[in-house]
């Protein structure tokens, strides 16, 4: 007991409390540094980009480089807009969703129904690994499959395929997770009433889990909205609005890349980025709202 008292009398409290406070301070500082880019980036987009945003910006096509050069030389805002990009993005997002949603939801249902099976585990693992594939590689794949063999040339379809492969794992996972949260008893009650399985899926499971599924889909869309690299290898771009999915098409990120590379069009990069960010943010907010309402 004696030695314990001498040991206990070692008192490093003040040093330890100081260390405690210092580390807390460091954590706070580093955390603030961590979030500073988001504030700086959005700030930059708003400050530089808001001037260009107007109705015209949304409904007119991209100007050609000479028009832009003249405008810049005269100190005016570059005329025209990014309508071709907006339409292209929307077209490809819709196509990608049409491809990814049914496959993703059905696969998610399959995984939910077969929790322990080897096949389901394999599928789930492959889906997770697929999620980590870089988007540029997906662009390569879509090039090899669609551009080379289906549309014989760059096309909106090729772009959509690469985007849909990106969305797919996200939808699979969110579907499975959503369904897992629905009480077993609901499904069992329906089955006990003699309802055929496919109706249980369509009339009970999907409606009940709808907000969760929707959240996953919206998040998937917000993810693909900003993708540039795969589209460079597949959709290529276009100066006109294009609704033909077998032909090349523009997209907002592709336009940003084109503007970036053309000294005359630089002025348009910030407003386009601002619009893109706004779309992504709104989708994120909406899906967070839906998720929150669910709770």
């Amino acid at each position: 007991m004696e030695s314990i008292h001498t040991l206990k009398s070692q008192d490093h409290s003040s040093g330890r409390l100081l260390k405690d406070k210092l580390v807390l301070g460091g954590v706070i500082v580093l955390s603030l540094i961590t979030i500073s880019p988001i504030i700086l980036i959005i700030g930059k987009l708003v400050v530089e980009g808001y001037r260009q945003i107007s109705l015209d910006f949304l409904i007119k096509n991209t100007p050609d480089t000479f028009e832009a050069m003249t405008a810049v030389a005269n100190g005016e805002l570059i005329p025209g807009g990014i309508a071709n990009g907006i339409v292209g993005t929307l077209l490809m997002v819709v196509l990608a969703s049409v491809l990814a949603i049914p496959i993703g939801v059905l696969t998610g249902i399959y995984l939910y129904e077969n929790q322990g099976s080897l096949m389901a585990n394999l599928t789930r693992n492959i889906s997770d690994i697929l999620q980590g594939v870089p988007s540029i590689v997906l662009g390569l794949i879509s090039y090899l499959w669609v551009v080379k063999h289906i549309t014989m040339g760059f096309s909106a379809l090729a772009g959509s395929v690469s985007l849909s492969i990106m969305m797919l794992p996200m939808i699979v996972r969110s579907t499975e997770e959503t369904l897992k949260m629905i009480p077993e008893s609901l499904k069992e009650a329906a089955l006990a009433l003699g309802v055929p399985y496919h109706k249980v899926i369509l009339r009970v499971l999907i409606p009940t889990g709808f907000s969760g599924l929707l959240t996953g889909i919206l998040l998937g869309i917000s993810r693909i909205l900003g993708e540039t690299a795969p589209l460079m290898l597949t959709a290529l771009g276009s100066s006109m609005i294009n609704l033909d999915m077998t032909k090349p098409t523009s997209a907002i990120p592709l336009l940003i890349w084109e503007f970036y590379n053309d000294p005359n069009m630089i002025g348009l990069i910030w407003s386009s980025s601002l619009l893109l960010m706004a779309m992504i943010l709104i989708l994120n907010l909406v899906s967070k709202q839906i998720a929150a309402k669910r709770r």
Partner: protein
Amino acid sequence: MNSDKVTKGVLFSVSILILLLAAGMLYSLVGGSVPSFKAFGWQFIISGEWDPTYGREKYGALPFIVGTLITSFAALLISLPLSFSTSLFLGEYFRGTRVARILGILVDLLAGIPSIVYGLWGFYVLRPLMIDLGFGGQGFGIFTASLILAIMIIPYATSLSNEIISMVPNDLKEAAYSLGATRLEVITTVTIPAARSGIVAGYILSFGRALGETMAVTMLIGNTNQVPGSLFDTGNTMASVIANQFGEADGLKLSSLIAIGLLLFLMTGVINAIGKLIIKKMN
């Protein structure tokens, strides 16, 4: 019931699609790389030449492999203190408070910014900063690219670590407090050891993300097809060379780019598999 069998069959076949997709991707990438491997063999991976001149084409992936690995590692190192502190902020120090909620949303937002927007910001804001700080040349290079990559991967490690850290049971922490530990001591002796594998998995996954980033990197790295000699040299990465050199590439050049895509596919696949394995082991 028969319709049930049909339904089950449909579900099964749809899920096979995912497996077919993955297999198909591997097949196409390998198939597309064959001409290149036939021409260069294993030299492809260790050769640094990239000469598209017709008649004496020679391609090697080494500069890009090195560039990818260096930028991703550097990005990981730079992001580590930042994302670790932030996950402690969110999961331990200020857990459940409004400040944490706001900060958490801001960190999530970092993940939502598209690569090309990071690239623009990097080009117009970071690059001049690098020049001002005297880092040589036009401000392009491995370092600048790693810096922007670091910012881009922070949210991935942060959200995973944050989740794991906040799941450390309260009563373990209380036991440590009751023994007279300071908050820092509770974190270092109880919280972090308990959350260790989750934290590591988070970093492995964010490393995997860094490997495949294209746009922001290509806008800042300088795009020179050489093995970089120092952190401030320019260089190139696998993802960015594919994006850059793809236009009008065909024949051997295209095959070489596809081969690089295959390497990238395999690298990210392995890294992600390791990360997920660690997470699975934890649960």
